[in-house]
């Protein structure tokens, strides 16, 4: 019975997190719906606008996020084995990669501002076509919302590393705490996995 209580608690917490992630999927789902509508309404212009994005930077950022997901998965595995140091190192690595993602994204935004591609920094006349303008609007909203999620994730991961390091989250008893934050981070990754082809690879 001593073991049953934490495992019940873990299932309850996990279920809550999965439902929260379901609502996150629907939140980004609205943007996927916009992407679908734009693509059906203006296939040529959307493809042309997508070609102007730096798909190489996007791919590099995908690698960064996928690797950080690996780090989080390793952190969960270490936490379940009660390895404090391994957990902390993996969590910090994941948070660091998250920061790297944000840095690369900022560089990319900077390039797009200089190339007169990013709405809010670019006069409407500078866009190739009105639908190209719309597509870049969607790009900006979607990537900015995703970046907000990455930022929240970095804070969560770093805070978790701190708590594990200070032993205020004891392992392996508190492994569910690592798992729950990990789920959030993986979902942020999954959303990027879809955003990347939908934004960068329209041909």
């Amino acid at each position, binding site marked *: 019975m001593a073991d049953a209580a934490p495992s019940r608690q873990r299932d309850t917490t996990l279920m809550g997190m999965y439902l929260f992630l379901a609502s996150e999927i629907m939140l980004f789902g*609205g943007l996927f719906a916009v992407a679908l*509508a734009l693509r059906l309404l203006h296939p040529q212009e959307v493809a042309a606008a997508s070609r102007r994005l730096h798909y190489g930077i996007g791919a590099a950022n995908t690698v960064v996020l996928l690797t950080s997901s690996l780090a989080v998965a390793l952190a969960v595995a270490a936490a379940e084995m009660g390895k404090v140091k391994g957990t902390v190192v993996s969590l910090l690595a994941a948070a660091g990669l998250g920061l790297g993602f944000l840095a690369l994204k900022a560089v990319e935004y900077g390039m797009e501002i200089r190339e007169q591609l990013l709405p*809010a920094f670019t006069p409407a006349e500078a866009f190739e076509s*009105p639908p190209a303008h*719309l597509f870049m*609007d969607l790009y900006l909203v979607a990537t900015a919302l995703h970046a907000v999620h990455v930022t929240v994730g970095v804070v969560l991961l770093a805070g978790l590393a701190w708590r594990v390091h200070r032993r205020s989250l004891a392992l392996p008893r508190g492994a569910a705490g690592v798992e729950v934050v990990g789920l959030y981070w993986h979902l942020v990754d999954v959303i990027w996995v879809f955003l990347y082809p939908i934004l960068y690879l329209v041909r």
Partner: protein
Amino acid sequence: MTEVSYLEHGHSLKSWLLTTDHKRIAILYFLSITFFFFVGGAAAALIRIDLLTPEADLMSNEGYNRAFTLHGVIMVWFFLIPSIPNTFGNFLVPLMIGARDLAFPRLNLLSWYIYMLGGLFTLAVLVLGGVDTGWTFYTPLSSMFANGNVILAATAIFVVGFSSILTGLNFIVTVHRLRCPGMTWGRLPLFVWSIYATSLILVLATPVLSITLVLIAAERLFGVGVFNPALGGDPLLYQHLFWFYSHPAVYIMVLPALGVISELVTAAARKPVFGYRFVAGSSIAIAIIGFLVWGHHMFVAGQSMYASAVFSFLSLAVAVPSGIKVYNWTATLYKGHIALDPPFLFAMSFIGLFVVGGMTGLILAMLAVDVHVHDTYFVIAHFHYIMVGGTVSAYFGALHYWWPKMMGRWLPLVWGRLSAIFIFLGFNLTFFPQFILGYLGMPRRYHVYPAEFQTLHVLSSAGASVLGLAYLLPFTYLLYSLRHGEKAPPNPWGATGLEWTVPSPPPQHNFHELPTVDGPPYQYPVEPDAERETAHG
């Protein structure tokens, strides 16, 4: 039995504002929702007074637009959606399933604070002069032309949406994880089934509204134009996204009411509910089919004819699970030993009004007829029959039924019966004329109208004044009962359900020992705890 009740456990303001007790949070919601009910009602009163004459004599056009927008926004997001789930759901779900609290008590308190934050934003909108887009925030009106506080209003709804999501999430996990031993899915009270179905919609539909409001705000702030036809965007896309949330939101508003009525009807009939499985299953069916019908709001907006045909057919299909419920309630009442208590009178008026609202919904779901009555008072009357005649009646029914449990005091039954009757009469006098008005061509959202419509508008406004007073009535005698009502026994109505096995009001941790359930639900008849004397009515 010396356990301290949840009401007695701490009297300081702090013990209320920092509580994680689901029952206290329910009371917090009850107070804040009642406040918004009267703010929204005041806006409705302004509308009905203005409509007494064909000319614009009380408000300017702009002022009238702001009044009905405020009425809609407050009633939908700050009263109807949280009404039954956040008060009675919060109070009853743990009690009904034999748990000590919700799965995430602190999250529950957070939801209330988020709700209040959203409410503050709404009050700020009100103080700063309102919005004039209608509660639907249709583009391009809301994005390019409206000059009210659109962004602030969108923020308010965005914020309150998170309260909805977190509450729904909490209920789902609670029902899955915290049922007491023996409380199988087949033994869950029907109210819990309906709250579960509602929560599914809350979690899955609300985020789409959130992102849509973000896009509106982004369009106003940065010119992000995905709904802007001048850039090749599509205003209809806004309507798709909005109604993907807002049609299921109609079921968020009415499903909990259906659950309440299932409880009230069986308790009044003193018989086991007829067709338990079908009533429970129909809640889930309504939640799912409710996601497939949103396009019936867009029949004349220019969406594809083929999409309209599919949406029309599926809208008719929603009537099936709704009909199942009404038939099962009727069959439950058949040969029952019915007591004409206030909760039952509210339930009866619910059933009648819900049937009228539902049947006129079928009329509106038909493509050809909708072209004629779209955006007229026929639509207004239809959804008020469901939302006000239905949900608000059920809300008052629930308030009367569970009041002795929540407060530990009897309410004056005679006054309860009177207010149920006055609400029913006032409601019909207000909204039935609007069916005729709409069919004759009176469009919604206009306050200047041809003189020939005046008689019906005056009738409607007269009914609204009866209805307004009838809504005030319960709050006076319920307040009175808090001081002067007799102490209520644990099971005053002779009802089944775990919530009636604990003292009234319930102790802080609900159950001294977690109960065990060993039989099906609704094993009527059950004797009431105390013989009811004529003194109670």
